[in-house]
């Protein structure tokens, strides 16, 4: 069947944020193609899960509900997904570019012998003329992603090996409910018919998932520091400013690598992609990898003592100076002028 298919992640009976983003993006592609949207979800205690997925306009949902399927492990999920995809034969399959999606999707692409494009930030539908075959291929997936450290955007296509698969970066696609009362057909997957005992050879011994309060994606204001902040102690100034403005603190990869700030606050190509209404970059030079994760902020302030810092080119305000002086002044004048 010609369809768009989404692999949904679940933890503790809740569909992951990224999967909701993918369903929204998948529906948009399905509408362009005039085809159904399908989804699959594997986990435990999923009785209520349909209600979370249906509103995104899913026509058919495959549910595998089994205690052994959560937390995620590669082999059972790969066995289930490949079995379903072989039967359904969709045109496009989407995964999150998460630690799960990036573990699972390549394994499936290898089984199905098909193309997979990683970390896409734009998905579209379009045509392509293959000169060698003198043939126009219609309605292909345009899987568009940053490449070469974010310095170029590459449009990756695949016309001859079915299906076309992509992983999509978190926080890039906008969530959009299609219809609260959408009618979704559900198929319960018979796990024991597909998954074999040897698919469970990898055992999870221990797991620590921090339900961290950090939600950079939702923060309206982000105060981010780079290597130029100099120390963990200096980051406290940034924290003070963020607290005052009702924002979150983030960091560049260099700041994370230097141990100034926690890994889960990293912004950029390998961290979180953010688009706040205000982004304050303190002591961040603005390598392309960093800019790729924040350049869509509505307003950017750069505080830097290097006038040539690349980030200055995309900033609305550039403050030349030492951030140890500038940040306390910003705090002072905010307190004075805010109502």
């Amino acid at each position, binding site marked *: 069947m010609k369809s768009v298919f989404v692999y949904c992640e679940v933890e503790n009976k809740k569909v992951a944020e990224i999967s909701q983003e993918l369903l929204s993006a998948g529906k948009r592609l399905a509408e362009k193609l005039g085809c159904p949207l399908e989804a699959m979800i594997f986990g435990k205690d999923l009785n209520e899960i349909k209600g979370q997925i249906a509103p995104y306009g899913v026509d058919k949902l495959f549910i595998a509900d089994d205690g052994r399927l959560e937390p995620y492990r590669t082999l059972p999920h790969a066995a289930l997904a490949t079995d379903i995809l072989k039967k359904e034969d969709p045109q496009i399959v989407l995964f999150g570019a998460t630690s799960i999606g990036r573990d699972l999707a390549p394994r499936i*692409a290898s089984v199905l012998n098909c193309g997979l494009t990683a970390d896409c930030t734009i998905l579209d539908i379009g045509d392509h003329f293959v000169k060698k075959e003198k043939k126009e291929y219609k309605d292909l997936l345009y899987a568009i992603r940053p490449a070469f450290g974010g310095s170029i955007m590459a449009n990756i296509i695949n016309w001859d090996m079915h299906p076309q698969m992509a992983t999509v970066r978190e926080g890039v696609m906008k969530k959009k409910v299609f219809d609260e009362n959408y009618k979704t057909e559900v198929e319960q997957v018979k796990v024991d018919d597909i998954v074999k005992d040897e698919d469970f050879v*990898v055992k999870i011994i*221990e797991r620590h998932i921090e339900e961290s309060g950090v939600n950079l994606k939702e923060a309206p204001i982000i105060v981010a520091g780079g290597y130029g902040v100099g120390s963990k102690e200096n980051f406290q100034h940034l924290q003070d400013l963020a607290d005052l403005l009702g924002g979150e603190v983030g960091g560049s990869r260099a700041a994370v690598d230097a141990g100034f700030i926690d890994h889960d606050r990293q912004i950029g190509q390998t961290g979180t992609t953010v688009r706040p209404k205000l982004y304050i970059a303190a002591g961040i030079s603005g*390598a392309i990898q960093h800019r790729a994760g924040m350049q869509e902020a509505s307003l950017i302030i750069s505080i830097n003592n290097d006038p040539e810092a690349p980030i200055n080119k995309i900033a609305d305000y550039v403050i030349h100076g030492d951030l140890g002086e500038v940040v306390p002044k910003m705090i002072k004048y905010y307190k004075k002028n805010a109502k």
Partner: protein
Amino acid sequence: MKPLKIVVLAKQVPDTRHVGSDAMKPDGTVNRGKLATVFNPDDLHALELALNIKDRVKGTEVTILTMGPKRAADIIREGYYRGADKGIMISDKRFGGADTLATSYTLVKGIQKLAPFDLILGGRQAIDGDTAQVGPQCADKLKIPQITYVEEIIEIKGDKIIARRRLEKGVETVSSPFPCLMTVHGSSPTCRSRHAKRVMKYKYARTNTELKSKTTDEVIRSLHEKRPYLTISEWSVEDIEADMEKIGLSGSPTKVKSVESIVLTAKETKILSDADADIEMMIKELIEQHTIG
């Protein structure tokens, strides 16, 4: 504990972390010639993990396997300097243009020629593509379990290995039977440095292609006759019995339709000093626009 046979997958990559302004051609394509090549950083972490296991389990053999053009022999030499026991290059023009599917097929044909093995290690991802796909795709083709994003080996006992994985929001400790494949996360220990004695021992290691080159000194050639371990094996399409349909461009479903360079949009930037007046003015403007406050 019986010694292990470990294969480390390593790639030579353009150094995309230090992209200068001349790295892009005016048409927006990458000027590869202007980028220095490096040992892919995550793969160096994988090599360290392998050497760490070798320290723990006596008699373990670490083989470094790379696919790439002739100059990728640098990766093998670097591996020798840091502690690898064997190095093999898969190099043939016909492998060129491979995407991750064709690459994993090719590497697996090489790994199978090296069989039996206990552990395959590779970096989580390469900085020239950041796809993180080749590891899991190799694991599938070898029909073995995969453990991705490994940052530490906790224990090796008998027929299984226990490792801690670094996930986005936490860590997970898992066990897997041998043989298995692991991809190694950049949060694992950095690779040990070159060892001076090993540099002395292997600095004349060359592939046959390099030996034949006119620029190679006759002394080095004669040295290779006396010390066969200096000759780095070089495998072609025929050597690994690869199916031409599955390698290079023809084995690669994904194709680049177009590339567009990201141009920094020139904004109207207000340049301020750190003087009180400047900062107060900015704060007032932000409050007026309702950006803050």
